[in-house]
Each structure stands twice: as structure tokens, then as C-alpha cells.
């Protein structure tokens, strides 16, 4: 092995981890919904499996459903039910909140092409 050989090998062994770090950073998954409870609790829910679950807020239990890549509030203890009326959330940036119960649901993008979505 010549000195040049060693340089090439070292380059290869530096380049490989760099490539993994660069291209494998973003999680390889479908879209996720982020649920914020109050000001400090965060949940991330994948949208690829259908399910229903409840989230506790100061006012009571909000019921959230995931179905066919979409998510919505099924029910909530608030008076106006604006959150329920928001219907199905599907696209990156879609957002519904039960403000009285301090619970919000937003679709996170898995596509990191855009830094922000304007609508």
C-alpha cells in the first residue's frame, strides 16, 4: 500500500459517515400529526395507521381520530366545537385547535423541500 493508497482509503472512510449523516437525517416515514397539549407537552402521531385516541386537557377529554392519512377532532368538551367543525386535517400546515381545552393538532410535513407554507 502506497501513501496515496492510504489517503484514498481515509477519504473513503470520512466520506461514508458524512453521507449517512447528510441523507439519513430526516426520518423516512409518512406524514405525522403533532399534538400540542398546553404549552409544554408534545405528541407526534403517525398518520399511516388508523386509530382513535383521547387526549386530556384542563377541560376534559378530547377524542382524536386518524383515518386514511387524515386526522380530526371527533369530540371535545368545549362549548363551540370549532375544533370538531374544522373537519379532517390532511395537508402540511393544516391545523385545528380546541383552545378552551388547550389542545391543538397540526399536520407536520415530512417533505423538507419548503421551509414554510403560505396559505
Amino acid at each position, binding site marked *: 500500500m502506497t*501513501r*496515496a493508497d492510504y489517503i*484514498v482509503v481515509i477519504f*473513503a472512510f470520512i466520506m*461514508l459517515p458524512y*453521507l449517512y449523516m447528510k441523507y439519513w437525517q430526516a426520518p423516512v416515514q409518512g406524514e405525522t400529526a403533532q399534538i400540542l397539549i398546553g404549552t409544554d407537552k408534545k405528541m407526534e402521531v403517525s398518520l399511516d395507521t388508523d386509530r382513535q385516541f383521547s387526549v386530556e386537557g384542563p377541560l376534559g377529554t378530547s377524542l382524536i381520530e386518524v383515518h386514511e392519512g387524515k386526522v380530526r377532532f371527533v369530540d371535545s368538551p368545549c362549548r363551540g366545537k370549532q375544533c370538531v367543525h374544522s373537519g379532517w386535517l390532511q395537508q402540511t400546515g393544516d391545523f385545528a385547535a380546541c383552545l378552551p381545552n388547550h389542545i391543538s393538532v397540526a399536520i407536520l410535513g415530512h417533505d423538507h423541500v419548503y421551509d414554510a407554507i403560505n396559505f
Partner: protein
Amino acid sequence: MNPDTKQINLTFDTTREDYRIAWLTALAISIHIIESALPSPLPGVKPGLANVITIVVLLMYGWPTAAWVAMLRVTVGSLIIGTFLTPTFVLSLSGAIATIMALGIGSRLPGRGLGPIGYCLVASMAHMATQFIVAYTLFIPHDGLFKLLPVLMTASVVFGIVSGLIVNAMMSRLRVE
């Protein structure tokens, strides 16, 4: 004027060297054809084991001959398989050109330059990287393709080192003769 002297002598003086180069080229083409039967994550992207021959030729007969053998391998190989001028051929060709250029640079390095492992690694990485760029630019301009890049380059490094070891083994045998 004697009509006989106008006769052009069409006999070739073939040397032992020519036989050897022809034999190596045939071997390279065979390996190329076998490799084409192997499955791969990305159509047309192959480990480049046929590079072993290219580098043996490089070490024994110099860069111009190696370049020639590499081009022959890709062109004749694809004609035989029937993929001439298809996307597979474009990928093979781009890989081969990248390899040739990388080896050309490598052969001009000062001092002792590169040994078999160095050449094989350089060739294999250039080969894979260029094939990836061509595949992305011409055939699959999808960002998700980049997820494959680290894996492909790992394979190229592994195959590069393996090729280098094979070349080492071949060279010791060929030199003895």
C-alpha cells in the same frame, strides 16, 4: 512501376502482448455480462467488479490501453447483451468514463502514486458516484433517491477494496509468468 509494390501488406504482426490484452478484454466483457444478470437496488448500477480487469491492464500496460479495454468492455458487452443505447448502457458508459478519467488522474500522481487498492477504490467510487448522478439527472430526479446514496457508496467502497485485493492476487500471478 511494379504493380506488386503497390500491394499493401495487410498482415498484422501480433505480439504476445496483443494476445494478452485481447484475452483480458474478453474476460472483462464476460464479467460485465455476468454482472448484468445480478439484481441491484437501482437498475443498471452494478458493483463494477469488471473494473478489476481494467486496473490489471492499467498496471501492466498503462492508462491508454486500460481506457481502451474499458470502453470495449462496455460497448461490446452491451451489444452482446442487447442493451446498447438503452438507459442501462448510458449508466454503464458513464461509469466507465468516470473510471477512466479517475484512473487517468490517479496515474499522474507524483511519487509512487497509487497501488492496486488505491486505484480500485478511486475507480469504484468514481464509477458509483457518476452512475448515481446520471441516474438522478436523467432517469429518476426524485429527492428520495438520495436515501440510497450512502448505501451505494458503502457498497462501492467495499467492492473497491475487494477488487483491490483481487487485483493484488492477479498481479502476483501474472508477474510470475
